[in-house]
């Protein structure tokens, strides 16, 4: 169930730190303000990394959840 409309998706499963964040930053650069990006990651550092990245860059983190060792994030481009 997706309450937030997703504009872009990034499958970062299997990528080691810091590539999920690097690829997220790369993709966000190509997006328009207001668009949303869903990222799926398996890197255990992702929860804290995405929260910190969102705070520092000002791109809101709309969702952060985990299911077993798979992490899901939804960001909105500021």
């Amino acid at each position: 169930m997706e309450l937030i409309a997703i504009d872009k998706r990034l499958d970062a499963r299997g990528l080691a730190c810091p590539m999920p964040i690097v690829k997220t930053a790369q993709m966000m650069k190509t997006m328009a303000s207001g668009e949303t990006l869903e990222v799926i990651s398996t890197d255990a550092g992702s929860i804290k990394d995405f929260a910190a990245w969102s705070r520092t860059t000002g791109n809101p983190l709309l969702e952060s959840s985990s299911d077993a060792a798979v992490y899901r994030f939804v960001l909105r481009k500021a």
Partner: protein
Amino acid sequence: MDEPLNLILFSGTDDKLQAAAVLSAGAAALGRPVNVFLQYWALDAFRADRIGQSHGLAPEAGEEGRRQVDALTAAGQQSWAETFRQAKDLGGIDIEACSLSMDLLGIGPDDLDPLVDGVEGVTAFHINAGSGPVVFI
């Protein structure tokens, strides 16, 4: 986060260069400028004809460390050079060769991989470092 992260890379082994590349990529993803200064064996590893080769591991890795790194590589972990390339795509990373080390190794700018942006002296490095932390790897 406006102050740059300043890394002096001295060691030329693959594990230390990978650690430096990961630190650089993380900072770049946050929009933090990164200045990388290449000296001695790290500079040697950035030679165009050597960057794709194996550069060994730090002595503390031992045989077990070698096996662990080999397993990660076999599982698809990218090289430190590729990590630097992707980090540089984000912008904000400047990689400079130490001119004194260039003399030591007897090489010129054309001998270096395109990842290297230029050649500078230690004075320029200190000026560009501002009041950001300086880390020696």
